[in-house]
């Protein structure tokens, strides 16, 4: 409302004030002149971070995946922006002043856009909650939104501290992550960090696996995990990739486990909402309250 007193007279000023009042409080307050105003994001993870950190009018386009409720947490917000398919031509026509992309995906597209003179900023997939912090801080700077990025970070730190189960001991339940084509997450992955912070021991990490690697069904079964965390299936069509999920050995192992959990769209990307994945996993695995696991202590 302090905008109004700058020029008290005239109808136009009132309209401007009204319009500005409808936008988030810090929209007009601090955005400098050189802040990017036509941001095109080509990666689901940068899409969602940008939706959180940027003003809506800064974003020109997000990737089409962000519109998909199965993959994207912020799909409702994403649908207010035009989709792109990560094609150099279509992005060129949008004449962005900042392009956000994944470091591993569409490298050729990133290169050609750079050669055409666009500013392309790439982000590695977050492999831990520390990475998420760094991504938020970096994107906040790129978007010239320091105040909002500080606010998001403070809330993220607070929520993460409260979600993380710190006391771990010998009776820590074992958890197995299982994705399509028998893949699992070993150490140095966001999923392993989620599992550890939920007060569980990831068998992939325990077996010395690193990154995303195959875990033969036999090894999962022989480890007799207390919690099995399976990938959310793409229900659009059948594929052999999910064959292991209908294998009787896994079905029996899941019956013996105390919980069978499916990952959701908050696991796909590292963002502030990923803290929710810890909370939901804790609730399902029964590790939410530390005293609940005292059953077999000796």
């Amino acid at each position, binding site marked *: 409302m302090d905008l109004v007193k700058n020029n008290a007279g005239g109808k136009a000023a009132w309209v401007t004030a009204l319009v500005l009042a409808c936008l988030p409080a810090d929209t007009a307050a601090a955005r400098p002149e050189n802040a990017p105003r036509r941001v095109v994001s080509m990666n689901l993870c940068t899409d969602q971070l940008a939706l959180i950190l940027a003003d809506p009018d800064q974003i020109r386009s997000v990737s089409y995946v962000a519109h998909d409720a199965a993959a994207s947490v912020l799909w409702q917000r994403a649908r207010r922006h035009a989709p792109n398919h990560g094609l150099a031509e279509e992005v060129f026509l949008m004449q962005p002043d900042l392009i956000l992309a994944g470091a591993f995906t569409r490298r050729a597209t990133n290169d050609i856009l750079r050669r055409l003179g666009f500013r392309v900023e790439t982000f590695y997939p977050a492999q831990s909650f520390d990475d998420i912090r760094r991504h938020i801080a970096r994107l906040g700077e790129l978007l010239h939104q320091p105040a909002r990025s500080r606010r998001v970070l403070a809330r993220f730190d607070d929520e993460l501290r409260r979600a993380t189960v710190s006391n771990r001991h010998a009776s820590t339940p074992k958890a197995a992550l299982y994705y399509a084509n*028998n893949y699992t997450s070993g150490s140095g992955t966001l999923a392993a960090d989620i599992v550890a912070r939920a007060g569980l021991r990831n068998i992939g990490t325990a077996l010395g696996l690193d990154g995303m690697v195959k875990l033969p069904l036999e090894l999962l*079964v022989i480890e*007799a995990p207390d919690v099995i965390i399976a990938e959310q299936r*793409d229900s659009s*069509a059948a594929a*052999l990739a999910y064959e292991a999920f209908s294998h009787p*050995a896994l079905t029996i192992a899941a019956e013996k486990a105390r919980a069978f959990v499916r990952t959701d769209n908050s696991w796909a990307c590292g963002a502030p909402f990923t803290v929710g994945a810890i909370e939901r996993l804790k609730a399902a695995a029964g590790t939410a309250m530390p005293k609940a696991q005292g059953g077999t202590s000796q």
Partner: protein
Amino acid sequence: MNNTLLNTALAIVLITAFVASLVTGPAAIPLSQSFEALFGGANEAAVLVMQEIRLPRAILGLLIGATLGLTGAVLQGYLRNPLADPGILGISSAAALGAVIAIYSGLAAMLPITLPVAAMAGALLAVFLIHRLAGRHAGTITLILAGLAISTLGGALTTLALNLSPNPYAALEIVFWMLGSLTDRSWLHVTLAAPFMIAGWFMLFAAARALDALTLGSDVAATIGIDLARTRTLIVIGAAISVGAATAVAGAIGFVGLVVPHVLRPLVGHQPSRLLPASALAGGALILAADVAVRVIAPARDIKLGVRTALIGAPFFVWLVFKTRRELV
């Protein structure tokens, strides 16, 4: 070599390979414990691994290997062609096409039996086409060309079907269908495929005596009371349903049906009927051995079974080409 002695020796090799397949795997279960777990033991996880993962895999390997070896021996005898093999003739890739249509259309998820049925239909179509295109009296080259046409078309249509699937994983699964694998096969796959494979064996073995007679030429065979039409029906349907069922659950595994009968033929005195049981036993042993090798060499990589059999089979195929060429000259 004495026939009984040969078959006994091959049976021992087969049993050894079967046991080796049971005790091989990424989960390190001590030898004594693994056999105990096979019949139910204290360690629940080990029981699960042995009974639900390794046993069905080994049984399926044995059945599929035997099917491929036997079919190869029968087709080589019947078509009087040393290069006849379910893979080379395109029967496997046509069966894979049928299986792919059943799985990725979602039909197999609703009604599992449609999986082997669709694969058998594909295989039957291929055998029928081979018969129409080449027939029994075609030369080696005509037969191979006909097989090449069918397997290329089958492979292309399989790739097309997988690429059209909205599931992003489907397109990558072309590897499974082209090369075959026994990874994570379960009792469900055994019950789906075994009855058809075994029914196919009965039909193929029923043609054994006719194959012996046919080595003297079809006219002579007819005069000594061989029903040629019946023999053809037995072989066409027997080969189609056994290879179709095998491919439906493990993909197209090549070269077994080519190599095995060739290696054994001199040992059985070039008599087709004696070649059949020996080829079945050796085929089973070869697949089991290849499946053990797959799990011992780079176990985490899930190397496809067909890669192993092709590594053995392809050089053999080259040697065979040279030999055939020498004979032609």
